[in-house]
């Protein structure tokens, strides 16, 4: 699992560098055309660096704002908090912030720039559909994204790529994110049937989340189909479809 985290961190650096270079180039060209040739390089570097830093710092806040998520009350949602706490003990992760989206369609995602600054988001539909064991498996899957540093890459992708050129997001994300999160989740819970059951329920459910901005379409555990179908299929371009993920888990 540390190998995956290292790969994702490398990927995050590459993504950031490409972003900085692209922004820097654009700024430089604009300034050069206006006649500020000598100062252009410095200004371009400052602007690009500044924007990259801002994107990194604000990526999770942007994603949360776009999705309409609000904090989940520990007293009201005791089960949700208890399950996450248990999994954090099993994995040695710090407990992330937990948010809810009021939507009947079952779905979930995780964002943040590091395990210490992470947020886990679940729809009320997910809480209604899954039983205790299945919900735990879904939460373990999301926590695995946090543990594997997937969230760093996907969060950067929201602000650095998603807001500018959503079509390029699949290339930014890399391969097999969902399947590796599946195996890490099972490593946490030691109970494959839980996740199998949860994925089967997700596969058979046909509802789609209502608030569905393109910039965050890649974050969800279940690709939102419908209006954004080409995009959603694209984000799973380098990953296995749900049926195959279930088959892989059955082999364990």
């Amino acid at each position, binding site marked *: 699992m540390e190998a995956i985290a290292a790969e994702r961190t490398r990927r995050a650096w590459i993504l950031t560098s490409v972003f900085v270079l692209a922004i820097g180039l654009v700024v430089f060209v604009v300034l050069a055309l206006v006649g500020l040739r000598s100062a252009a390089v410095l200004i371009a570097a400052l602007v690009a660096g500044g924007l990259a830093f801002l994107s990194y710092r604000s990526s999770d806040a942007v994603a949360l704002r776009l999705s309409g998520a609000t904090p989940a009350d520990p007293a009201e949602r*005791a089960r949700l908090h208890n399950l996450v706490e248990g999994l954090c003990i099993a994995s040695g992760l710090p407990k992330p912030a937990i948010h809810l989206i009021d939507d009947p369609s079952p779905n979930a995602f995780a964002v943040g720039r590091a395990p210490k600054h992470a947020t886990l988001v679940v729809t009320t539909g997910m809480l209604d559909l899954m039983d205790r064991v299945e919900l735990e498996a879904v939460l373990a899957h999301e926590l695995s994204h946090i543990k594997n540093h997937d969230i760093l890459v996907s969060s950067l992708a929201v602000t650095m790529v998603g807001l500018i050129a959503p079509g390029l997001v699949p290339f930014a994300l890399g391969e097999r994110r969902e399947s590796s999160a599946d195996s890490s989740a099972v490593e946490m819970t*030691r109970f494959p049937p839980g996740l199998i059951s949860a994925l089967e329920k997700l596969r058979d459910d046909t509802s789609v989340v209502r608030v569905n901005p393109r910039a965050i379409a890649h974050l969800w555990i279940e690709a939102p189909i419908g209006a954004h179908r080409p995009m959603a299929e694209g984000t799973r371009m380098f990953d296995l479809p749900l049926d195959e993920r279930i088959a892989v888990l059955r082999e364990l």
Partner: protein
Amino acid sequence: MLALIIVIVLVVVIGLVVMVLYNGLVGLKNKVEAAWAQIDVQLTRRADLIPNLVETVKGYASHERETLDAVIAARNAVQNASGPQESANADNQLSGALKSVFALAEAYPDLKANQNFLSLQETLTGTEDKIAYARQYYNDTVNRYNTKIQTVPSSLLAGMFHFTEREYFAAGGSARGPVEVSF
């Protein structure tokens, strides 16, 4: 002159390697200690919640004395147990006794609807899960620590600095059997 420089460089390099390996062992050893302490935190939490549960159930199912007494007795047995075998047996007994108490709710609809009872049930179930996960994490950490002690190159230092292997947490003999639930 050159020989001297080479020797100094070698000493520095070896020193750095030793430092890194030693710190790695210390880090893992501390992780094992912390993981063990975490199990106790959850065990204490469970023990603290049980009196509250018994009082709540008494309000609705006061003639279920046997079941309630069994829980109290099991809780005390866990507190007083000495040695891993006794602890494991007492722990298993307590889990069974708790399940019996929760099963009572099926026969007493007023109890089942009581918010306090439901909240306690959720919290206690959560705590049982956390105890299991804490033990799982402890074993995972012990695994990493023991492996590091056994493998080269850390193994060379482990003996020198008295890093010894830790024992895994194992379920007691009776814990492998089915858990008894009595009504």
